[in-house]
């Protein structure tokens, strides 16, 4: 036996013509971040950071660079960094998006890139907001299967057509980009909001669920589906491409259909 082990197969030697990480173009960006620290001041202010970033970098990488190399006090949420956990919804250049899914090169890098916390929820520090009101509305629509009768000993089978009926709304990652893009929610925070309705839709139209009527009753509230003004901010904001406004309309129609 020799001491030297073979190179792992995963490490591929790239010819110079293909290029390595060093060949990815770099550019300078200015990141304008809205800062807020209630322990220092009740006012928020803007901080600017000049960074040299790569063409493959996302806004999240820029925030990491700031936090790790320039200003460790910058606070923001992130977990997966790959668009599945829903932690890092923020307002980037005035639009709600996930920092981990927004490539810097797709933004206008000739101007400062503004990064703010999502609107309509209480800011706790920098880009971190209190999500509790958002989750409260989510809990109220009973986001779990409610089935009558005895639990079967196997899976609850469903036809592909029945599954397809609510497929779009199963994709939600509860990032709050939609609810915090809705002007009706901004006004007084009373509206249930798109995300709660999307997640109600996921069960209302699930053939295995028996509590659809209860959820429709909950959303037929003064602050429920009827506050939606069909302005499509939520559909545009959703990082999962869920047709949020369409789902809300379907719930409206289901509430109506139940009355007549």
């Amino acid at each position, binding site marked *: 036996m020799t001491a030297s082990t073979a190179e792992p197969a995963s490490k591929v030697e790239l010819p110079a013509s293909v290029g390595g990480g060093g060949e990815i173009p770099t550019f300078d960006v200015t990141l304008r971040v809205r800062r807020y620290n*209630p*322990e220092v001041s009740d006012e928020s202010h803007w901080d600017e950071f000049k960074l040299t970033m790569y063409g493959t970098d996302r806004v999240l990488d820029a925030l990491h660079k700031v936090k790790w190399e320039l200003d460790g006090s910058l606070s923001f949420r992130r977990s997966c960094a790959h668009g599945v956990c829903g932690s890092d919804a923020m307002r980037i250049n005035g639009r709600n998006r996930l920092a981990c899914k927004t490539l810097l090169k797709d933004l206008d890098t000739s101007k400062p890139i503004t990064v703010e916390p999502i609107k309509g929820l*209480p800011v*706790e*520090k920098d880009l971190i907001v*209190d999500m*509790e*009101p958002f989750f*409260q509305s989510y809990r109220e629509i009973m986001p779990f299967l409610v089935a009558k009768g005895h639990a079967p000993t196997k899976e609850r089978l469903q036809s592909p057509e029945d599954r397809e009926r609510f497929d779009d709304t199963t994709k939600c990652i509860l990032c709050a980009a939609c609810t915090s893009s809705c*002007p*009706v929610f901004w*006004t*007084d*925070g*009373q509206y249930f909001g798109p995300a709660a309705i999307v997640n109600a839709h996921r069960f209302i139209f699930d053939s295995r669920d028996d509590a659809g009527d209860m959820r429709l*009753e909950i959303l*037929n*509230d*003064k*602050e*429920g*589906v*009827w*506050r939606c*003004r069909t302005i499509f901010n939520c559909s545009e904001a959703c990082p999962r491409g869920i047709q949020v406004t369409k789902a809300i309309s379907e719930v*409206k129609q289901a*509430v*109506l259909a139940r*009355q007549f």
Partner: protein
Amino acid sequence: MSTTPDIRFPRSTSETGRVSPKYTRHGSGAKGGFEMAAWLFMRLSGIVLVVLIFGHLFVNLMLGNGVHAIDFGFVAGKWASPFWQWWDLAMLWLAMLHGTNGVRTIINDYADRDTVRFWLLIVLFAAAAAIVILGTLVIFTFNPCPTVNGVPLPGSFCPKP
């Protein structure tokens, strides 16, 4: 000893550390039956208004001499017919209820202080009630040839005394 400052738990602004009271739905239990009816009414009245408004515009502006025919006598002539009285009444009521409910929605969406919202709605409903009542009165009591102090007012279309 450690002198860690007593910093309040930052989560939410309520004392219980849960959801800020601003977000709890005080009207909870207030069912949306009225909001649903209002939503439906906006769409149904909208459909009827398309017929009423475009019918109105066509008859007034296009038929016959078109816009040049409109004068006091033209209006008097239309309101002599119950058909146009009821047409205009329906247009008045539907447009006013539709428009008022639309502005009510806008006020609810944009006024964030309860007192401001309350007074804006009071002004809106008072104005709407005044217009609907006065308009209804005018449509049914309109008299183009009144007699004032025993003297009939001149009007070429009025029957000669």
